[in-house]
């Protein structure tokens, strides 16, 4: 076993030694070859200077390569595979330890004999013993020292020197041999001997749109890399004589080369990748070829960052905000928002607002699908397109990530609203029935009581039980109403007028409900009468409410039929197109589509027929033309069209379809007519009320305006007309103002003197008192300006008394006042004068009768306004009256009251201000009423603006009626607010009860007056 182990160990040692040797030889050979290579390169580069003949170059290149190959063979391959390898190894071993080489040789041979079963010439044991001994011996030596790698270090220096030599030769020795040598060409260009150029200088002038500065590249290799459209100016020093020549761009026309100051100059524009050379015409020398790398302008990048999702749900009348970001390497010249749906596609330019010098544009825009007349459930794809300003290759377009807009199914939302409204109506009818029954029973009971001999006992428990049940029902109805309103607020098809009507209804119902709850909570026998009275007020309320909802639902059914009719008409049109396609040589696919369309039409027809049947009788009989409905029996005609299409009789089918389309249009016209008649009839009463209201408001406004004019006249007359002293009011005021000014001046001087004190003194009271006087004097000036002589007189009196006090204090030198006794005295004197003047004026001031008369007139107008407001609130009713109207009238009433008081107090300027405010409130109220009237007129025509969309948005597209609907100049409401918010605001305002912010308004108003 040991013997066999020795055999394998010996074999391993020998193998390891061989590998070690090979590795050593390979490294050694490579090092020598590298040294040889670099020295050769250096040498041939030098030798290449002898001639620029390409064959010479080729000879040098081939010679060098052959030498290199030879060297590789001689220095690497041959030593490694030399057969004497074993001998050499044995020699090395012998050198390491005398006899070791021979022993090893014997051991190897014995091993060979043993493994190949050759004759040993000795015993096996001896052979194994020798092998084992030799192996052991070999193992005892450090065999790695036989081929020390460190011996190779001596070559590193030589290699570095070689590299340096070659590099210096290549860099500093002119000529193109090195580039040729390292190229794959066997023979260099034969076009002629190379034109040697030195000090190449390139100037790059970038295209103008890039707005980049020109770039100068000195010591260029001649290769250029720049954007397409860049102008290249080439400059170099020819190493040989250059008389004239040209610059040749690959696939381009030659450009003459100019010589100047021993330099040559030329240029070209980069249009594509390629190369260029310079040729000297007289000698035919051509420069080496320089590369042209044409860089492309980058395509702009654009991205929609918000909305972030891929799909967004949006109502057809809603708007959304889009945030985008666009970037280009140079500049974005145009941005557009593009959208497309199944039918159309369009683009809208986006205004670019560049905030900085960067090439990044970030922006936001508001977009809504209302302008493109989408259908419910449509999907629209939105993208932002960014165009750069590349004038060379034409603008490049970057396209953003698409956003898919899924339009909400507004009709199903509307259906939901109607379901709520229907439920509400059911609840209200139930309540009305209960109320009537209860009142009716009670009345009967009373009658029975009166006629009967026995007195009937009032069972409060029973009454309470029934009333609680009823209250619960009313609460439920109010809650359903609330849901209905919320649903309407989200519903694009709900009518604004009805929305306002229902909102008012909610307020009234809540008020009645509160009253009811309060009554029920502490109900006693004594309250029976009150309860009866309450119910008798509730009944008309519920009646009106039911009628309102009934009208709404009836009208809506009409509109719904109208919408379906229009859908049907569109389907006809699509069918017509398909038939035309079939006629123009359609295929089986078109035939299938026609059949499919026919089936769709049949389905729509049947739906429409159902809707028409569902119309209330009074609408149908009263307003619609019955002949139009005969056309509804079109199913047979459709079958006929289908048959004709199948038989290829397209002309006939088209004729028939045209006739059906005409019938349907007649029906639509009838429906529109019906809608308008029904709407007008339904709203006639409300509209006439509103009309009357507007007219009365106009009267009040006219009267108030006239009164204000009169008051202004009075003011003017007071100002202009001379009094007993021969001076007019204006002169009087001016005179008093001057006095007040002087008074202020005196006081200021006094303050200055009083304040001049040493830091140690402590007498700030005097300065403080004077300061207060100055303030009062300024107030006095203000009252005089406002012609409020009462206040001015009061103020003057106070100043006079205070200055008198100051004067006395100055005598006592209180608070350092003694220093300004003179000024204080003068001030006191002036204050006294002003006081006397004003008091005298008060006595003389005439026109008492006129003031009283005007105040009386103001009271009358206030009364009219109050009456109107009261009627309005009683109308409560005013189903469609906007909520802010009463508030505005209240404001006007209040201002008028103030104006009246002012007139009585002869405060003419203040009165005018109040009158002005009253007029403003009246005008606002009138505006609101007129807006509402306008809304109602449109609603009556079936074109009422929908609850959420409205508010200042103009819309494009066709209405279901085929007319330009809803293009109403809608109320003067903050246009920035979307419908939903606005309605929410109305809801909140209405729920809030009394006019919010009224006190604030008054405060502001007085602030303004004082100012």
């Amino acid at each position, binding site marked *: 076993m040991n013997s066999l182990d020795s055999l394998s160990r010996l074999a391993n040692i020998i193998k390891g030694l061989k590998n070690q040797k090979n590795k050593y030889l390979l490294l050694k050979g490579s090092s020598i070859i590298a040294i040889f290579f670099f020295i050769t390169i250096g040498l041939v580069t030098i030798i290449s200077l002898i001639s620029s003949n390409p064959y010479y170059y080729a000879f040098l290149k081939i010679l060098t390569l052959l030498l290199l190959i030879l060297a590789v063979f001689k220095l690497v391959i041959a030593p490694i595979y030399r057969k004497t390898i074993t001998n050499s190894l044995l020699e090395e071993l012998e050198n390491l330890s005398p006899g070791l080489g021979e022993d090893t040789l014997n051991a190897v041979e014995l091993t060979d004999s043993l493994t190949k079963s050759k004759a040993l010439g000795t015993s096996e044991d001896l052979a194994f013993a020798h092998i084992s001994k030799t192996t052991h011996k070999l193992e005892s030596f450090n065999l790695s020292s036989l081929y020390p790698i460190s011996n190779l270090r001596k070559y590193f220096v030589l290699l570095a020197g070689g590299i340096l030599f070659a590099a210096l030769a290549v860099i500093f020795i002119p000529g193109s041999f090195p580039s040729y040598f390292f190229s794959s060409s066997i023979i260099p260009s034969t076009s002629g001997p190379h034109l040697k150029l030195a000090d190449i200088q390139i100037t790059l002038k970038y295209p103008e749109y890039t707005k980049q500065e020109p770039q100068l590249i000195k010591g260029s290799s001649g290769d250029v890399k720049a954007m397409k459209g860049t102008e290249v100016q080439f400059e170099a020093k020819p190493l040989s004589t250059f008389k004239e020549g040209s610059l040749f761009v690959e696939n381009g026309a030659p450009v003459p080369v100019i010589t100047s100051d021993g330099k040559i100059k030329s240029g070209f524009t980069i249009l594509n990748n390629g190369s260029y050379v310079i040729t000297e015409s007289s000698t035919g020398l051509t420069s080496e070829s320089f590369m042209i790398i044409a860089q492309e302008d980058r395509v702009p990048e654009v991205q929609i960052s918000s909305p972030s999702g891929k799909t967004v749900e949006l109502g057809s009348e809603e708007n959304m905000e889009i945030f985008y970001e666009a970037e280009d390497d140079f500049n974005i010249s145009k941005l557009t928002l593009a959208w497309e749906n199944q039918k159309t596609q369009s683009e809208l330019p986006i205004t670019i607002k560049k905030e900085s010098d960067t090439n990044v544009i970030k922006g936001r825009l508001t977009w809504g699908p209302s302008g493109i007349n989408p259908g419910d459930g449509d999907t629209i794809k939105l993208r932002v397109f960014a165009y750069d300003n590349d004038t060379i290759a034409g603008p490049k377009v970057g396209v953003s990530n698409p956003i898919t807009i899924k339009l909400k199914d507004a009709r199903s939302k509307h259906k939901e609203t109607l379901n709520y409204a229907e439920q509400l*109506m*059911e609840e209200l*009818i*139930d309540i*009305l*029935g209960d109320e*009537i*029954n209860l009142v*009716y029973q009670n009345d009967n009971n009373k009658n029975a009581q009166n006629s009967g001999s026995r007195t009937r006992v009032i069972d409060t428990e029973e009454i309470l039980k029934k009333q609680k049940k009823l209250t619960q029902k009313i609460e439920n109805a109010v809650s359903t109403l609330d849901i209905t309103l919320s649903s309407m607020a989200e519903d694009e098809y709900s009518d604004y007028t009805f929305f306002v009507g229902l909102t008012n209804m909610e307020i009234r119902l809540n008020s009645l409900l509160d009253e009811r709850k309060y009554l029920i909570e502490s109900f006693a026998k004594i309250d029976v009468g009150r309860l009866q009275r309450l119910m008798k007020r509730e009944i008309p309320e519920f*009646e009106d409410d*039911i*009628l309102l909802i*009934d009208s709404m639902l009836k009208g809506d059914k009409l509109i719904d039929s109208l919408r379906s009719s229009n859908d049907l008409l569109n389907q006809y049109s699509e069918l017509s197109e398909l038939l035309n396609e079939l006629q123009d040589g359609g295929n089986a696919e078109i035939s299938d589509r026609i059949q499919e369309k026919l089936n769709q039409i049949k389905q729509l027809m049947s739906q429409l027929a159902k809707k028409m*049947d*569902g*119309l*209330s*009788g*009074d609408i*149908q*009989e*009263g307003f*619609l033309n*019955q*002949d139009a*409905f*005969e056309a509804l029996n079109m199913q047979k005609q459709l079958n006929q069209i289908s048959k004709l299409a199948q038989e290829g009789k397209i002309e006939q089918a088209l004729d028939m379809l045209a006739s059906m389309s005409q019938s349907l249009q007649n029906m639509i016209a009838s429906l529109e007519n019906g809608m308008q008649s029904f709407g007008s009839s339904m709203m*006639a*009463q409300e509209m006439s009320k509103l009309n009357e209201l507007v007219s009365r408001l106009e009267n009040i406004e006219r009267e108030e305006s006239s009164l204000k004019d009169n008051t202004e006249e009075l003011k003017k007359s007071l100002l202009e007309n001379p009094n007993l002293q021969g001076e007019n009011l204006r002169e009087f005021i001016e005179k008093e103002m001057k006095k007040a000014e002087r008074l202020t001046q005196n006081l200021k001087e006094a303050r200055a003197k009083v304040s001049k004190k040493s830091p140690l003194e402590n007498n700030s009271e005097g300065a403080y008192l004077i300061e207060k006087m100055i303030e009062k004097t300024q107030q006095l000036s203000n009252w005089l300006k406002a012609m409020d002589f009462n206040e001015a007189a009061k103020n003057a009196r106070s100043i006079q008394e205070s200055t008198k006090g100051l004067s006395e204090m100055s005598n006592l030198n209180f608070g350092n006042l003694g220093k300004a006794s003179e000024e204080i005295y003068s001030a006191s004197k002036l204050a006294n004068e002003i006081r006397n003047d004003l008091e005298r004026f008060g006595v003389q001031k005439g026109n008492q009768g006129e003031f009283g008369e005007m105040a009386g007139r103001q009271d009358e107008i206030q009364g009219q306004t109050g009456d109107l407001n009261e009627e309005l609130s009683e109308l409560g009713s005013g189903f469609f009256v906007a909520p802010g109207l009463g508030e505005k009238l209240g404001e006007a009433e209040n201002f008028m009251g103030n104006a009246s008081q002012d007139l009585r107090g002869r405060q003419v300027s203040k009165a005018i201000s109040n009158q002005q405010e009253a007029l403003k409130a009246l005008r606002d109220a009138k505006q609101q009423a007129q807006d509402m009237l306008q809304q109602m007129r449109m609603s009556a025509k079936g074109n009422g603006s929908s609850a959420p969309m409205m508010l200042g948005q103009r819309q494009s597209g066709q209405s279901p009626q085929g007319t330009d609907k809803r293009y109403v100049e809608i109320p003067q409401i903050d246009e920035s607010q979307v419908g939903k918010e606005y309605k929410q605001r109305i809801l909140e305002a209405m729920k809030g009860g009394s006019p919010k912010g009224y006190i604030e308004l008054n405060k502001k108003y007085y602030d303004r007056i004082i100012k």
Partner: protein
Amino acid sequence: MKRKSTLYLFLTIAFYLITYTWCSHSSEIDELLDSVESGIKTWQIRDASESIDRALEKADTDEEDFRSSYLKSLVDFYKGNYISAKEYGEKALSSKELGDEADFLNFIVAASDLAPEFKEIRTENFVIRYAHPKDLILAEYARDVLGKSRFEIGLDLEEYPKDPVIIEIYPDMKSFTLASTLPAENVEKTGVVGICKFNRIMILSPRLLPKGYTWADTLAHEYVHYLVFLKSENKVPVWLHEGIAKYEEKRWKEKDTNVISPFYETILSEALQKDGLVPIEKMHPSLAMLESAREAQLAFAQSGTMISHLVDNWGQNALIDLISSIKETDDYQAAIKSVTNLDFPLFYESWEKDLRSKNLEEKIPGVSVKGVRIKNTEKKSIDGSEDLIDIDNNRARDYTRLGDLLKQRGRLSPASYEYEKALELDPYSPIISSRLAYALNIIGESERAREVLYPIIEFYPSHTDIHMILGRIYLDEGNLNKAQEAYLTAIAINPYDPEVHASLIVLYDKQGQTELKQREEKFLKLLLNEETK
């Protein structure tokens, strides 16, 4: 020479004979055709028919052929034989270039071509035609009405047609206006729903009006026209025609005639007060052509009362003599004079004086006279609101609508409360009254229901709902005769309401009238089947 003379004589005789034969043939066919024309003009259609058949056999020349075809077309049209009328009409139209005849021929061809596919019920004296299956009910009831009319009015006017009179019930407005030659707007404006023309009576099916109309009176009215036409050979002027028809139209069911209903009293008193009577001259050519339904009704009232004045003061025979005299003289003024011994202006004056002496009152304040509103479909609206539009007072209409909404939900007491409120605002509205009475009756307040209905029935006897509700009240009370009377009155206005027939089944069952009960069952089945179709 002698031979020559003999030959000459022979030729002369032959020429004479030929000429005579030809001339005698020619005069015979002319006579025949003239008699046909005369027969058509006076609606002696049986004679005209015999003559035209003979004329057709004898016609040799183109001209004769054309005239015969033309008149044959007319005769057949007047006989109601539309297929033949069309055939001969087309033949006549193609035979030569036509003058004035062309328009009428074209009309006959078109009307015959588009005539509804009638079915018939024949009696000894009438051929009642109907096209819509439901109109069978009307035709059946019409048999009774016409039988009574023939007897009573025939007695009054001493006229009985020899041939069966054709009655046609038109199923739609289009076919009616085509056949009657009345423009649709006239029908809707003046409310003319029946006409006696072309030797037949044509009426519009009451199915087409939301609440029907007094079709039985209309049939009787038109039958009077038929008799007057025959009796006077079409010489009585239109206004007088209408007066006689108005005077006689209720005779089929009433013994005494009273033209002045509360409605007529109202419009007559107003016209007398305002001197707004319709001049006799304006009543030409037809009352249907007057400006409004109100004016037409006033004209009916005037002419009807004028005949009433004649009969009241000069006896029934005066009316018969008047017609005969007009036939003789073709001058109604002369005829009046011969009958009354008064010049027409004096007669007119005496009528007006008589009318004024009656101190007529505005019985139904604010009555409105509306034209005919044709239903677009037979289906009733879901909420039964189709007649609300006829309530002029907006608030009353609102309360009625509220009542309807409550009624639909079974809240009849509250519904009656709302109807009461509506009635306060519009106290004479048959629409509100009938709704209120209905609700009251169901909740057991039949007394009050009757109180509501009684004043109204006098004002609006043709409002079918009133009779229906009364019928129900009587039936509930067990007053079978009264109930039957009310239901039959309702049927005489609107025979298509299944409820009437259902009630009559109950009623006849109680009365043990099996045959009538079976008839009603048949009608009910017919209606219900139609309804469910």
